[in-house]
C-alpha cells in the first residue's frame, strides 16, 4: 500500500461523503456522522478534515443551492474522486484480508 495518508477520522468523513451523494455538504455530513458515531462533533473538525482531503485529492467540491435556513448562503457539495474510491477499496480489502487470517475470535 502506498502512502495514502488517510487518517481514521478522515476515512469516516470520506465514507460519509460517498454515502450521502448529492446531500454531502458540511452540516449534513456532521449530522450523519454524529448519529452513526453517537457523539458530538465540531464544525471545525469536519471542515478541516474536508479541506485537508480536498487538498490531498480525495474530494472535489462545488457550490450547491442556497436556502433560507442558511441565511441565503450557498452549500458546498462534496463529491468523492475515483482516487478516493480506489483508496477506500484498498483499505477495505486490507482490512478484510486481515480479518480472514484472524482465527476465530469471540466477539463478545
Amino acid at each position, binding site marked *: 500500500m502506498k502512502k495514502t495518508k488517510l487518517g481514521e477520522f478522515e476515512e469516516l468523513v470520506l465514507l460519509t461523503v460517498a454515502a450521502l451523494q448529492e446531500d454531502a*455538504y458540511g452540516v449534513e455530513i456532521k449530522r450523519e456522522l454524529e448519529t452513526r458515531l453517537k457523539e458530538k462533533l*465540531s464544525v471545525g473538525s469536519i471542515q478541516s478534515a474536508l*479541506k485537508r482531503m480536498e487538498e490531498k485529492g480525495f474530494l472535489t467540491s462545488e457550490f450547491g443551492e442556497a436556502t433560507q435556513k442558511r441565511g441565503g448562503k450557498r452549500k458546498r457539495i462534496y463529491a468523492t474522486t475515483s482516487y478516493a474510491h480506489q483508496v477506500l477499496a484498498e483499505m477495505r480489502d486490507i482490512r478484510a484480508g486481515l480479518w480472514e487470517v484472524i482465527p476465530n475470535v469471540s466477539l463478545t
Partner: protein
Amino acid sequence: MKQPNHYAPPKWPLRLLRLFVKEEYLEEIEGDMEELFQDNLETLSYRQARRMYTWEMIRLMRPLIMKNIRITLSPNPYDMFKNYFKISFRSLMRNPLSAFINIMGLAVAIGICMLVYAFIAYDNNIDQFHTHKHSVYLTTFFADREGTLQQYGQTPGPLGQMLKKDFAQIKHVCRIEDRNLVLKYGDQVFTERVRYTDPTFLEMLTFPLKWGTSQSLADVNSVILSEEMSVKYFGATNPIGENVHIKLGNAGTKTFKVMGVAAPFPKAHAIDFDFLINFENLRLSESDGALHDWNTLVNATLVQVEDPSDLKIIQQGMDKYKVLQNKEVQKDWAISSFAFEPLATLHKNSAQIRDDISVDPPIESLVALPVIGIFMLALACFNYINIALVSTTKRLKEIGVRKVIGANRVRILIQFLVENISVTFFALVLGFILTITVFLPWFIPVSGRELELNLIDSNFWVFLLAILLFTGIASGLYPALYISRFDAVKIFTGSVQFGKKNPLTKLFLGIQLVLSCILITGAVVYMQNTTFQTMRSWGYNQRDVLYVNIPNQAAYEQLQDKMLQNANVRSLAGSKDHLGKKISTAIIHTPANRQYEVEQLAVDAHYVNTMGLQLSDGRNFNDQSENDKHTVIVNELLVKNMELSNPIGHQFRIDSTKYQIIGVVKDFHTHSFYNPIRPTLFKLADKKDYQFLSVQVKNGSQEETYQALQTQWAALFPDSPFQGGYQEDVWGIFFSQLARMEEFTRTIACMAVLLASLGLYGLVSLNVAGRVREFSIRKVLGARLLDLSVTIARQYLVLIISALAIGVPVSYMLIHTQLNMMFAYPMPMDFSGVSIAVLLLVCVLLGVISIQIRKVAKSNLVKGLKVE
C-alpha cells in the same frame, strides 16, 4: 419564512469569522454555521444555541481554515537598515544647509534641556553626600515677626552645650560660628572665612580628609584646611605640620598647626568650610560671649540623634530653654518654639529658614530656563516636521519604488522613524558637546553653581534616552505617517496631490511663529531691561565712591589722616556698616505699639554726604552733639510704611533705647536689584566700632585715588590684606549675570528666528513646487510678477497675522510675568520690545517669501508646463 430578528446568532463571532477565515471558505462555513444554529434552536434554548454557536466558532480557528497571517521576517535586517541609513544620509546631504540648521536647532534645544537637567540634578544633590544626613538635624527656632512666624537657622549660643547635657538621646552636638579673620602664612596675608566648630563636625558631616586626621580638631591649636585653601597657601605639597597665624580678635595672633586637609568637596554642596578651628578659640577671642550669653546667636547648632522619633521628646523638653532665653533677651527677639530640620531636606527648605548655613546664591535669573528649554524643543520639533515634509517631495519616487518592491506602510513608517531617530541622535551628540563647551561654562558664573553633567549618573542616561525617543518620535511620526500613506501607483502616475492643502503643516508653522515671537520678544525685552537695570539709579552716588574695610579705630584714624591730605578726596566717612557690604537688622517699636523690622546702618555724620544720599527732609547728623546719639535718619520707604505725615521729630524705640527721627533720605538700594528696597535707618556709630572707611573722590580721579588708597594701606598696614574697592563693583556679580543672560537669550532668539524662517521657507517652497504648473499657466496668460507675488503671499498673510495676533499678547504677558518674577524693579514694559520682535520676524518672513517669489519669477515656464 423569515426568522425574527431576536433569533439571530450573536454578531461578534461572525465578525471574527469573517476576519480570519479564508475568503473562499467563508460563504460555505457561514452558511453551515447559520444552518446549525437554526437546527440547534429546535432542541436548545435561544441562549444555549447562541453559546453553542460562539463555541463552534472559536473551535473553527484552525490553521487550515484560517487566512495566512504570516509574519515575514526580512532575511537580512542589517542590510535593510544599512540601506535606510545610506539613503537618509544622502537625502540630508542633498541640502546640507537646511540639514545643518535643522540639526543645529535640535542640538541647541537638546543642549538646553541637558542644562536644565544638570541644574535640577545639582539642586537635588546639594548636601546629599553626608552619610548621616537623615540623623543630623539643624536646630532652628521660630519667632514672631510682624505677625508672621519666621523660622531662623541660627541658635542661641549656650543652647548647644545644654542640649548635650540635658538629653541622653542626642549623640552628638556641633556648634558652628564663622568669622572673617586675618590669616598669615609666611609673607602671604589674607582675610579668610574661619569656621569655629566642635570636633564632632567631621563626624556628623561627611568631609573625608586627604591628609591628616579628623580627631586633630579636638586640639585647640590645630587647623583643618579645605583642599582649595591648601592649594592657595601651600600649592601641591602636603602642609601637615606647617604653622599659620590667625588674628583672633581681642586675643591677638595665635599660631595654629595644620593637622588636616579635606579631600575636594563634592560639587553639589552648600555647607563647606575654608578653615576649621576648635570652638574653644571663640572663648579666647571674644570673652565668653557666644558660649554663655543667650543674647548672642551662633551660626548653627547641629545635633545628631540615634532615633529620629526621639526628636519629639527633645522638642518638648526644650520649653525650658525658651523660658531661659526669653527672660534674658529683649522682648522683640522672643522665641516661640524650637524645631529641627534634617540635613537631608535642609537645603530644599532653606528658602523658608532665615540665616541657615545651607544657603545658595540667588537663582532668580534662571527661573525661565526650563521654559526656554521646552519652547526650543517644541520649536525645533515643529521645524523638523515642516522640513521633513518638504524634503520628502523629493523622495516620493523612492517611496514608490520601495512600495513596489514590497514594503508595506509599516516598513516605510519604520524607515522614516529610524532615520529621524538617527538624526536626533546626531543632534543629541552635538547638543552634548555644545552643553559641555558652551552652555555650562556660560551658566556656571550665572548660577554661581558648579554645574556638571555627571556621566556616572544613571538617571542622566535615562533622561538622554527619553529625550532621544521623545524628540525622534514627536518630530518624525507625523511626516512618516503622511508620507507612507501614498499609493505607489499614484506616485508614479504623478497624481499625488502634494502640499496643496495640508492644514496641519500650517498649524505647525503657526505654533512655530508664536514660539519664535515669544523667544524674540524675550531677547529684545531682556536687552532693554539690562540697559534699564544698568542705568537705574542706585539712590546714591556709587560711581565716585571708594571704600575700604579697616580692622579698628586706630587704623581708621591713621588712614583718615593720610586720605584727607589727598586732593582728590571730596569727602570721607567712617562707619560700622556699609552699603552693599554689611548691614544689620533691628526691630523698631512705635509708641502706638507697632513693630517694624528695618535694616540699620551705623555710620558717622559724613556718611550721608560721602555716599551721595539725598536728604529730602530734616537734617544730617551732627558729630559734636551728644543728643544726636539718639537720633536716626530714615528712608522714605520706612516713613511710608509707618504712615507718618510729618516724620521729623517722631520717636520710636529700638531695644530699650529711644530714637528720634531727624532726617529723611530718598530711597536707595542696599541690595542688588533682584531684591526690593527695604525700610532702612541710619544711626550714629561709636568710633571704636568703625569697620569701613569710604571716600568720595572727584569725578574722573577714581583710579588714581584708588591706587593712592592702596599705596597708603600697604605703607601703614603691611601685615593686613587690603580689602576695598569701587562702590560701583559691590554688585558686580549681579551685572555680570545680567550680561550673560542677555548673551544667552540673544543666542536663543537668533536660533528661533533661524528655525522659524527655515520652517516657513520649507512650507513656501513646498507650496510653490506643487503649483509650478499653475504659475506657468498664469505666466503664459500674462500674469505679472506682482500678481504672482500676491497669489503666493496671500495664503501666508492670514497665517502670519493670526500667529502674530496670538503671539504678541502671549509673549507680552509671559515676558512681563517673568521680569516681575526676576527683578524687584523690573523695567516698566511697553510694547516697544514686542514691536521690535514682530518687525524682525515679519522682515525675515517677507525675505523668505520673496526668495520663493523670485524663484517663480525666474523659472522657465516651458519646463513648468511640462511638469506632470
